[in-house]
């Protein structure tokens, strides 16, 4: 299956976004590219930007490979994408408000009620609770893949605690230092206002009881979390305290942060701890990462959690398959961004088809993430396929399957020189009381191995700077 190449269009041509870059690539001596790449690596090492990989005893922390060739989107491409993202995230928030409130979409049969009720991410604590300003998913990371010049698919909605935005910012920072000449010949939309936008979003959703200058903090599971670097990076950029569970205390349903000047009331918590671990009195009792009583304070309306508790029901992969209907139901519009056609293995006919076509399909666990628990049929061994066949027979409702998409490729600097590699895109969409904002671009992830479609950093993927051209 030939993939769409974002530079050449797949037919040896040259697409307008890449004209300048192509000329530069042709003129640049390979030694210079190699030198810049090692400089880039040095920058990242110096910054200390690392990523912990679970299940890898050799190295628990490593650098995510950075590719120095940017991925370029034109203004019209981005404008359309952004419109689609706004629509999608609007629908996600309306869906969440509905399943925890009036349940109109369940009554109308837009999505089977069982799929919501049986979902462990559907948090009963949130039923009939009014979240501050009606917003559930303040920070969304929507994974997008491209298959041709005009078609972008949403691969996944990440509505819980999406990570990676620090790479988006650091990648730009490093590119600006290494290749100032490229920024002189391209009008690249800036991304460095992301922290300002995030801060404005978080401030806007403070409880109404809070002062006009609400106190915000970022709650991390701690230094052993794979995204700890990002947590400290963001807290620093936002100018807010980075706290762990033990730094917060709850008294009379009010959350305080321990400071050297005594307890200080907290109004908004950007939490990067999963629902399950956030309050041992309500969720997992063995969690030592959370804050006892925080859910009580939340439900008393004294603190805002961003994202809200229970957003996971919206990005579940089985629920995902209903997103086109959900978008239409809540916005009254046709979805601008397509969904990847998805076989729901919970439906016997679909599962029969999937079992017959495993070698062609991508099979995903409904509750999996980060590329774990996934079968890429065309690249899988016979044994791997058989393992999945058994799983699908035993617990079909735990899986969905999708056709293997020919993800678009972008020129990438690899050992053999410049070669096309598959990419995806994760833009970050912020929803606050003052509306939705989205920094142009996002994080481009690239599968560095030839032919590989798995871009996850936990599976050997790398990243690129993403450019949206202003002109």
């Amino acid at each position: 299956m030939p993939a769409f190449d974002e530079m050449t269009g797949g037919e040896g041509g040259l697409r307008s976004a890449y004209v300048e870059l192509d000329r530069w690539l042709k003129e640049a001596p390979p030694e210079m590219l190699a030198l810049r790449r090692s400089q880039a690596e040095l920058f990242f090492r110096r910054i200390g930007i690392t990523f912990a990989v679970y299940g890898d005893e050799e190295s628990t922390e490593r650098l995510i490979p950075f590719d120095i060739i940017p991925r370029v989107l034109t203004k019209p491409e981005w404008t359309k994408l952004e419109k689609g993202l706004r629509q999608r995230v609007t629908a996600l928030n309306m869906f969440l408000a509905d399943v925890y409130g009036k349940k109109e979409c369940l009554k109308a049969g837009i999505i089977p009620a069982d799929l919501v009720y049986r979902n462990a991410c559907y948090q009963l604590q949130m039923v009939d609770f009014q979240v501050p300003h009606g917003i559930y998913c303040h920070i969304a990371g929507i994974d997008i893949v491209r298959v041709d010049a005009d078609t972008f698919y949403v691969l996944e909605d990440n509505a819980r605690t999406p990570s990676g935005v620090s790479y988006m910012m650091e990648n730009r920072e490093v590119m600006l230092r290494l290749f100032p000449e490229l920024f002189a010949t391209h009008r690249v939309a800036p991304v460095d206002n992301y922290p300002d936008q995030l801060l404005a979003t978080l401030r806007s959703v403070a409880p109404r009881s809070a002062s006009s200058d609400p106190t915000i903090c970022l709650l991390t599971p701690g230094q052993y979390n794979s995204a700890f670097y990002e947590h400290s990076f963001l807290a620093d950029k936002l100018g807010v305290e980075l706290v762990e569970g033990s730094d917060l205390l709850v008294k009379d349903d009010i959350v305080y942060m321990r400071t050297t000047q005594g307890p200080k009331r907290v109004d908004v918590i950007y939490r990067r701890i999963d629902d399950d671990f956030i309050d041992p009195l309500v969720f997992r009792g063995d969690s030592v990462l959370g804050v006892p009583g925080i859910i009580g304070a939340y439900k008393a309306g004294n603190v805002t959690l961003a994202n809200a508790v229970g957003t996971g029901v919206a990005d579940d992969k089985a629920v995902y398959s209903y997103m086109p209907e959900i978008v239409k139901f809540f916005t009254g519009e046709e979805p601008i961004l397509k969904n990847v056609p998805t076989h729901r293995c919970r439906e016997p006919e679909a599962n029969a088809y999937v079992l017959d076509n495993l070698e062609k399909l991508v099979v995903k666990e409904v509750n999996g993430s980060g590329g774990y628990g996934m079968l890429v049929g065309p690249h899988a061994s016979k044994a791997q396929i058989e393992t999945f066949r058994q799983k699908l027979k035993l617990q079909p409702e735990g899986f969905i399957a999708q056709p293997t998409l020919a993800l678009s490729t972008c020129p990438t600097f690899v050992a053999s020189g410049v070669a096309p590699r598959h990419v995806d895109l994760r833009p970050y969409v912020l929803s606050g009381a003052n509306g939705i904002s989205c920094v142009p671009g996002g994080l481009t992830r690239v599968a560095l191995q030839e032919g590989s479609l798995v871009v996850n950093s936990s599976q050997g993927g790398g990243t690129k700077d993403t450019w949206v051209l202003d002109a």
Partner: protein
Amino acid sequence: MRIRISHSIAYAYAEPVRQLRQVLRLTPRDHDGQHVMSWRITPNIDGRLRSSQDPFGNLVHDFSADGPIENYAIEVNGMVETVNLAGVIRGVVEKVPPAVFMRDTRLTEPSAALRDLATEAAARGGSELSRLHALMETLHERIACVPTGERLGIGAGACLEAGEGIPQDVAHVFMTCARSLGAPARYVSGYVAESQTLPHAGGAHAWAEAYLPDYGWIGFDCANGLCPIDTHIRVATGLDYADAAPVRGARTGGNGESLLVEVRAQAARPRQQGQ
């Protein structure tokens, strides 16, 4: 039957507690099978006790106190009038649709062994109801139920593997099997009054309920091998033990905790005719 409950939970700490927070699910509600005549929860230290309801409709008390605390006890005393409805649960405040109780939880994770057991037991029954009865009987025979004492729960899978377990895990086994047979099932914590015939009686207990569209919720006490009768007082329900646990707590300080629990559940007077 009129049942008197006295339940005392006493903690002692080698190092004083600085801050204590507990969530108590120790208060029964009325339904067709039980009427709470009196009920009182008394912590023996100063603190803040607040009542609320959880998502399942359980009555919850939230207790918080500041240290230093070296000893702490809660006394629960009450009287409940019960009626034998042969396990049928009616008149309960239901806040959650039955489909929710099809979820797997950490303590009720399905396994091949649990599924096989469920299928095997179900083969002995015809209707959905008789299949669940057969399941209860099978578990009553196969799994040796041991007193809770100081044991902690280990979950359905491990309990089945061990062939023995405390009442809460026997309930977890039943729930996991019932769910695999397509019946929503939930956990119940409560009390069982002293009885000549029941092996697990006279104190706190745990059992399960399963939902059948034609009957609603029905209780199954596998440890005692019967559907709950008027000896049973239902206190709290949930997806598994964690949702319905009598006490959940968090504290700062307080290393070296020791716990002493005493429960009595006794008929307050001889059963009257015609009740």
